[in-house]
């Protein structure tokens, strides 16, 4: 009875999907208008867009980053470093992977869901890059994963494996810091990390590893992501420790179980 009244009431006023439809229309029109406005603006006056983005970035920076990095990104002693010269690459890496804004002061910024939209991140990056020149966002041609696989594998073993492990499974550093796992990391972030050297990672500038060599490393990481271990389940790619634990717990465990079963049957 009550249910019936409720549904009639609903039917009487408006269609159940009306609210959703209204929201969709509203979003599409606003978004469309915004896209139209911004695209026309960029088509006509690129210089003013940059200013607009820089201004937007500056506002975002003042609201979200200035507490630690200073109002003019010059750093606050003992709290946050200066961002002069870090470049767009660093901002894009830190903010897109959620490492910045920092959740709390600790030994190392941890990855978490990003807090800003793509546009906002790009505005922040443009603003920081406008302060002082630094490494920019990498060209998409280096990120396709079509470089020299064997060369990339060798470069990875020589330059990256001592912290990130040969299979990119990650590893420990001093004082609770660590090199994170590289499986599932976007190529653009791998590249940006190499040029900007986030946290404890050293900078691999273009003289150290040329862009083509960086593309090779990305190619190898992509290969590792896309090709599961030929030997079967990889036990986390952690090497002999996980193998040893596995044989003691599951291998010997299974066999001891069988011995108990055999001996019990006989009694």
């Amino acid at each position, binding site marked *: 009875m009550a249910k019936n009244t409720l549904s009639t009431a609903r039917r009487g006023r408006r269609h159940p999907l009306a609210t959703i439809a209204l929201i969709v229309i509203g979003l599409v029109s606003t978004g469309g208008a915004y896209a139209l406005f911004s695209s026309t603006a960029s088509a006509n006056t690129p210089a003013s867009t940059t200013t607009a983005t820089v201004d937007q970035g500056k506002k975002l920076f003042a609201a979200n980053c200035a507490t630690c990095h200073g109002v003019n990104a010059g750093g606050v002693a003992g709290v946050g470093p200066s961002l002069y010269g870090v470049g767009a690459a660093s901002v894009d890496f830190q903010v897109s992977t959620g490492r910045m804004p920092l959740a709390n002061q600790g*030994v190392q910024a941890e990855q978490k869901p990003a807090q800003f939209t793509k546009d906002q991140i790009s505005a922040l990056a443009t603003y920081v890059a406008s302060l002082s020149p630094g490494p920019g966002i990498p060209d998409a041609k280096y990120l396709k994963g079509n470089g020299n*696989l*064997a060369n*990339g*594998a*060798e470069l990875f*073993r*020589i330059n990256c*494996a*001592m*912290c*990130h*492990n*040969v*299979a990119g*499974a*990650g*590893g*420990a*550093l*001093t*004082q*609770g810091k*660590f*090199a994170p796992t590289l499986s599932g990391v976007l190529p653009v972030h791998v590249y940006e990390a190499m040029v900007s050297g986030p946290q404890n990672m050293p900078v691999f500038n273009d003289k150290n590893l040329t862009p083509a060599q960086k593309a090779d490393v990305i190619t*190898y990481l992509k*290969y*590792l992501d896309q090709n599961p*271990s*030929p*030997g*079967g*389940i*990889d*036990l986390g*790619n*952690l*090497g*002999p*420790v996980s*193998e*040893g*634990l*596995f*044989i*003691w717990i*599951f*291998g*010997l465990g*299974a*066999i*001891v179980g*069988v*011995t*108990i079963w*055999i*001996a*019990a049957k*006989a*009694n």
Partner: protein
Amino acid sequence: MTVSAPPAPSAPAVAPSRGSRFTGAAANYIDERTSISGLVKELGRKIFPDHWSFMLGEVALYSFVVILLSGTFLTFFFQPSMTEVVYNGSYVPLKGMQMSAAYSSTLNISFDIRGGLLFRQIHHWAALLFIAAIGLHMLRVYFTGAFRKPREINWVIGFVLFILAMAEGFTGYSLPDDLLSGNGLRIIDGLIKGIPVIGTWISYLLFGGEFPGTKVVAMFFSIHILLLPAILVAALGAHLLLMVINKHTQFAGPGRTNDNVVGVPILPIFAAKAGGFFFVVFGVIVLIASLFTINPIWTYGPYDPSPVSAGTQPDWYIGFADGALRLIPPGWEFVWLNHTWSFNIIVVILVLPIFLAAVAFYPFIEGWITGDKREHHIAQRPRNAPARTAIGAAGVTFYAVLWAAASSDLIATHFHVSIEGVIHVLQALVFLGPIIAYIVTKRVCIGLQKKDREIALHGFESGRIVRLPGGEYVEVHEQLSDYERWRLVSFDEYEPLMIRPNAQGRITTAQRTRAALSRWFFEDRIMPVTKTEIEQQHH
């Protein structure tokens, strides 16, 4: 017992079938030429008592057979040479790389030879299982006192087998000449070079020049497939022979005495069971090998002295040595007489052999302390030898701390703690852990003995409360049957040795030490329940 039935009028069973006539003739043929029937009769009647923990040595034996079979397959395709070649096999990320023939042929076994990867993984998993089973088998023998007279020699042979197995494992780990095995060899090279005066000479001798040289793989190959297996098989034969001669131990039980063995004979029951069990072990190894990657040498890449991967560890059985090196604090080396003295390494190469020697000679040490010269064929329950069980627990803790230290970096990343914190905690535990383990284990053993004594004398609490006619409430205690009680009361009684003067009337220092150690062993003890006590309890 058997009642002979009167002969049946028509005896159809007398005429043997064609098949059994053939078997009989063949057996006779062989026996007339080898006199094997005596041996079969003797061996076939050997009795094996049934207890699951008595099968752990078998697990080791069967994994060794699997290792021999799979290893033979691998030798057909492995090239033990460090000659530089260019890889042109199927694994794309290494195509065109310069590498040793050893590594290249291991890659070919993994990717281009049918079944090769499965065999490699069977071989490696079986090796891990082999040494793990040996370890568990040793623990079983230790904690049940099955190493006591007359089995001390067999304990030492077993210990030699354990060391040989580790040496086999390590040489095998080094053969593929990948980055991981090269790093392992580099650590061994560093250990050897840390030996004062002769270290550098030994290292140059081993590697045929400066590390890594071009000879070590070929030499390790001969050691791995020829020398060590030959010694291992010989020692294994001696181990099994002594087991047959000494007879198997058994747990105390009704009808089981120090002078008999109760169980099933080898032929036919035990042989059938053991044969089946072999295939179970084989099957478990193959199942693991077919589902789980072990030592993915293709991701490690060819050995090159410059790169080292994060998370580089030896296989589990060498872990305790790696962990010992990791636990040494920094700054233990100094220059004296124009030589560098690396005490960070010297301490490790002194402490580990002392620990291993204590394991090897434990039966003789305990025999001397207890002064027990009797033969023992009844396996003790660990609680009935509190001091030994506590020493064993302390040893296991010491080993486990060193072992854990070998994975300090992975503990740090996986539990989100700092690696320095992990190392400092383990440094403290390597000293404190064994002491705590000793005290706790000894108390637990004595507590369990007290409980056993209580149950043997008064039965166990049934949970049934009964009101007596006088109004008193009592809980009914259920008495054990004689069979159940047997297990609880039949153990030997030990007392500390008295200090006695020798033939010259003097009390030597050795005597005093022995008495002190014996007091430490047996001071805290629970006496086994005597027959009189039980009888008194019943009346």
